[in-house]
């Protein structure tokens, strides 16, 4: 059984069909990277998976439960699905530590002291123990994103969805965030939308190329970069590798 299974997802906004039947799976502790041009529906796909914006048609299964079934308690399920946003979305009124501990306290109902201790460990793992008492407005973009990752990890998710986690960062800050993500590979399932081709090539178990609401092609980094079947895939990867560098 797969950890995550997405079956024939369709999603429209008004008359515009953004996702036109997307299917793929993610196994336990597997890392999959989604690439594709802007406006292709990558963010929409992630929001369909955790039912923040449910799909019109198709099914999403996680750990043997159907999330698209309306009787499924998504508040319980979402604890297991970490989400890391392009623009961080930290809680502005809370310190870094509180940002990480609030889910433990309010959702998992863990007592305050234990939640704080766990949150502090998570911050330490992303190299931010010194910033624990700082507020989001006092952190750099890279630090904010690492708090965002710690916040997701603290909930003990079985899978983490990343929506362009480094796109809003200055180039010199991207490395720290990618390093944290690399350190997670193989420990938790990850589904990552990114333009960082070096990262995709080195860390992904599989790369999924999306365009116009469809999956055009997917395969190992080796195959996608060197032996893609579709002309369109080769073209896209050639262009994006120029833009974002090979490593």
């Amino acid at each position, binding site marked *: 059984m797969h950890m995550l299974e997405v079956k024939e997802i369709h999603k429209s906004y008004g008359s515009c069909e953004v996702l036109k039947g997307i299917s793929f799976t993610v196994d336990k502790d597997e890392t999959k990277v989604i690439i594709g041009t802007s406006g292709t529906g990558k963010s929409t796909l992630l929001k369909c998976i955790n039912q923040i914006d449910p799909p019109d048609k198709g099914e999403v299964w996680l750990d043997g439960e159907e999330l698209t079934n309306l009787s499924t308690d998504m508040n319980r*399920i*979402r604890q297991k699905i970490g989400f890391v946003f392009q623009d961080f*979305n930290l*809680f502005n009124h809370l310190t870094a530590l509180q940002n990480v501990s609030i889910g433990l306290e309010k*959702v998992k109902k863990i007592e305050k002291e234990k939640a704080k201790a766990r949150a502090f460990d998570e911050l330490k793992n992303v190299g931010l123990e010194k910033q624990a008492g*700082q*507020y989001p*407005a006092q952190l750099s973009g890279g630090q904010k994103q690492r708090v965002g990752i710690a*916040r997701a990890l603290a909930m003990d998710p079985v899978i983490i969805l990343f929506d362009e986690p480094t796109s809003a960062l200055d180039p010199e800050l991207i490395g720290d965030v990618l390093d944290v993500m690399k350190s997670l590979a193989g420990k938790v399932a990850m589904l990552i939308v990114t333009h960082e081709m070096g990262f995709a090539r080195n860390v992904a178990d599989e790369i999924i190329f999306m365009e116009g609401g469809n999956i055009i092609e997917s395969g190992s980094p080796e195959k996608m970069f060197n032996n893609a079947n579709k002309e369109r895939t080769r073209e896209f990867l050639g262009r994006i590798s120029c833009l974002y560098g090979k490593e």
Partner: protein
Amino acid sequence: MQSLPQILEGVPVTLLLTFFSISVGFCIGLLLALGRVYGKKAISYGCIVYLEIFRGTPLLVQLFIIYYGLPAVGIIFSPIIAALIGLSLNSAAYQAEYLRGSIQAIPSSQMIAGRTLGMTRLQSIRTVILPQALRISIPAWSNELIYLLKYTSIVVYIQVRDLTFQAKDIASHSSRYLETFLVVALIYLLFTFVFSEIVDRVEKHVRIPGIGLTQTVAKRNA
């Protein structure tokens, strides 16, 4: 100035009217604001009707209806109770509008971030949206407090013995209008000053570090 004690008798009444109405008005106003922003259509519409009625009619007319009007249908209030009800319901409408603006100023992505952690809508509102929205609304709320303090004087029209009522009473007996009302004006001024000073301190105290106070914060972190 032997009439000062009589003037001061009105002070507790004025303060009671102010604090009671701002507090009850806040609670009702918060429910109205949440109902308008997050409520289903019927609830949201109901809130709008309330707001339109209370903001679209004069406070004095509302007080007259409650105090002089309702007895016609068998509901009788003492002057002070009628005043407390009228001022609270009226202030609720204004506070609801400030609060709605503040709630809507919080980006929807904050709610989404809460939901992705597994919070319910209500939990996200309580722990993520409101703590931020309430901070933003403090300056407007401070204004409302000052307005309300001054508007309480309107209750002389329904025979409530507040600060202004006592002054009017003394002045009409002694004919010392100027001194009496200057003293009363001074008392109101003193309270507005103290209130805005206190609210100011509270606002600074709860301000989110890094937002608005960049320089102080940068210094502290250096």
